[in-house]
């Protein structure tokens, strides 16, 4: 209970800080939304009138607290550019980005954990250098490049999906999911490589510990030790790592959404920043912050179930 309260408290504080930082960043960065909306032919009077209409002529803190007040009463404000409620604009995009992150997360978990344990077998073997090189390569190639490559191979040559034409989730869920699947492959590759490497080094570290040596000297099979004890003990760091991955996936989706033409949150964030559409940016950034804290919390909760020591430690604090 104490833990839950502390977590919620942390969530609120994080979101407050993040929203304030975003507000501040826009205050410091040049350019203003009225200018973007009115373009090159705007007269100073027009600019002043529009700034007043949008409330931009008010002092910084007045604007921030007005936004904050709206946020806590469930009103995210309305977009300067689209002149409609922010929530209505981002809700359909949010679901796509979450779906993309979720599919990627499942792929990462399902592929990298067995692969990581399996790759332990090659340690010191003749093919270890090959595995290491391949792993490094997967981590190093930019998602942008991989995305174009995937679009070209699976979209243009094999016709498995149509790059540039994302089907609506409601009318063609199968098509949309297929499109998302290829995008998540692009998003996954470097993360899988990282997770595999992390898994491998954790297993190596565990296998060198005294209890493993004891277990083996008592006549246990190496593989039995690996599955019965080592894996369980490696789990906490893996879960923590996957929690971070979950948080990062949403951020990583920006580039992938652009390449695959998915109308998600990441793309919208980028265009809203260049349009100086503050209410939209503010809402998306706070959502992302929420997501990051949530992923961390879930990882913590799982770890506590897995490892009772953490539960005790958490309670004592």
């Amino acid at each position, binding site marked *: 209970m104490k833990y839950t309260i502390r977590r919620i408290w942390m969530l609120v504080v994080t979101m407050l800080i993040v929203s304030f930082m975003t507000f501040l960043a826009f205050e410091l960065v040049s350019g203003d939304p009225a200018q973007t909306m*009115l373009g090159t032919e705007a007269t100073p009077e027009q600019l002043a009138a529009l700034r007043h209409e949008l409330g931009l002529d008010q002092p910084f803190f007045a604007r921030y607290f007005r936004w904050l007040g709206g946020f806590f009463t469930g009103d995210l404000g309305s977009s300067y550019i689209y002149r409609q409620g922010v929530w209505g604009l981002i809700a359909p995009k949010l679901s796509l980005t979450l779906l993309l992150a979720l599919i990627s997360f499942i792929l990462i978990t399902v592929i990298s954990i067995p692969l990581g344990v399996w790759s332990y077998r090659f340690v010191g073997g003749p093919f270890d250098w090959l595995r290491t090189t391949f792993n490094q390569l997967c981590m190093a190639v930019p998602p942008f490049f991989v995305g174009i490559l995937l679009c070209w191979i699976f979209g*243009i040559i094999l*016709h498995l999906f149509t790059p540039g*034409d994302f089907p609506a989730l409601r009318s063609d869920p199968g098509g949309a999911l297929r499109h998302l699947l290829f995008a998540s492959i692009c998003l996954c590759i470097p993360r899988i490589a990282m997770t595999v490497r992390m898994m491998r080094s954790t297993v190596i570290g565990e296998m060198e510990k005294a209890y493993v040596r004891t277990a083996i000297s008592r006549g246990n099979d190496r593989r039995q030790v690996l599955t019965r004890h080592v894996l369980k003990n490696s789990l906490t760091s893996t879960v923590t790592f996957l929690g971070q991955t979950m948080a990062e996936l949403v951020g990583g989706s920006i580039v992938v959404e652009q390449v695959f033409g998915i109308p998600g949150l990441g793309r919208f964030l980028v265009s809203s920043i260049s349009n100086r559409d503050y209410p939209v940016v503010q809402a998306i950034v706070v959502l992302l912050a929420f997501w990051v804290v949530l992923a961390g919390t879930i990882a913590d909760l799982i770890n506590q179930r897995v490892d009772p020591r953490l539960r005790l430690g958490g309670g004592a604090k």
Partner: protein
Amino acid sequence: MKKHTMAILLSLLLALALLAGCGGSGSTTATPAPGTNNQTPATQAPVNTGRRATNEIAIGVAQDFDSLDPHHMTAAGTKEVLFNVYEGLVKPTADGRIVPAVASEVSASEDGLTYTLKLRAGVKFHDGSAVTMDDVVYSLNRRMSGEDAAAYLKALDIISEVTTEGDTLTLTLSEPSGEFLAYLMNVYVIPAANADPEGKPIGTGPYKVASRAAQDSLVLERFADYWGEGGKLDKVTFKILENAESLVLGLQSGALDLVSHMTSDQTTQLSAQSFRIEQGSMNLVQALYLNNARAPFDDVRVRQALCYATNKQGMIDLAFDGFGIPLGTSMFPSFGKYYDESLTDYYEYDPARARELLAEAGYPDGIDVTITVPSNYTPHVNTAQVLAEQYKAANIRATIQPVEWNTWLRDVYNGRDFQATITGLTSDNMTARKLLERFGSTIDNNFCNYSNPEYDEILAKAVSAIDDAEQTAYYRQLERILTETAANVYLQDMADLVAVRSGLKGLEFYPLYVLDVSTLEWE
């Protein structure tokens, strides 16, 4: 051990099979009938029979629309598309004329002070209601009154009186203006009863807005009750793909049928069997615009030195693969009679002459120049890079400073705080005036701070001239002054390369930045 390896391998295989299966079942719906593209190699985009059969097309655009309210839109990319949705009392044609639209007759008095317009009978809005004189007056007032700051159009200040009688609208001007109709073009007629022109866009054009998804797409449908000939395609979808690679992939994959404003590099990635590249011009004056009020560019010799140091054709060849028309003044060929071609080669490329001029002006060691460019416009950035390289031969050391568009607007265009910048200036109402008036010393958007009493004098005469020949002569004089005083380093009218899917025809280029979809049709 072995069993485990086998199990992992098997599950991987299963995953692959699932993947392939899922792809396979879907491909029957996603790709056209196999018979049509049996002969085409796999790497080529299939003709998308799906859209052809339903008489629709998809067009890729690089940015979302800034506003669907025609009186609020400012981005060129928005005007380009909404041209199909909204009309004024008069509208432009592809050959550069201004013809009656929502009005059926337009006449001007001999002194150019009174315009009489007759409302066309039977014009309907997209919601089915008839266009009334009230709607016309409402639209006019919305742009004139200044109550709605974003909709205010300064050029309409010359209207001193608006009177209506039945279906006749009379506009009285406070001073004669030969270009008044061009400005009237921007008074798009919208219904007075519509409280939300942004969220519920209603116009009178050949296409109506069917749906819009922010940062995703805009769907237009043919308006069956259009007063004129109307569109041929039933549905036109504009897909927003801000990533240039995605636009090319979209064409190749069959997701898109037409993309404008491509680079020659991108067009070479498309197969000639599936696409045809049509070349128009962007109708803009790309130049290295100089801050004439700031040293060293307050000295005409330094400005001329820059002109001599610039190899326009060389720049076009290098940065644009030779596509583009070199310019020598603030006017482009689409303007026909106003365009003075002889000015293009006024300054022949001559770096030695440039160094001499610099020395004369008191800079024997050359000068340092900072070129500010809006970083989102790759062509301008590329141009800056080529110029910086060319200028080395003339002892001009150029530094390129890329800035975000918003910063550019604030600092350079409105703040006039810059030394030199590269951009393209357009005339969104088809008048030569728009391109030349901005160099008048008292004009609001004279961001180059060009100040020349002789220029101001002729400009005043040109603007108030009613006789066309006389006005044309004045405008040509202005162009010559700009060139002779080297107001800016004029570069080119950039080429507009449009990729069009084979089988789609009817693309027309306007002397304006618009994409008319009503003339497009499948063969």
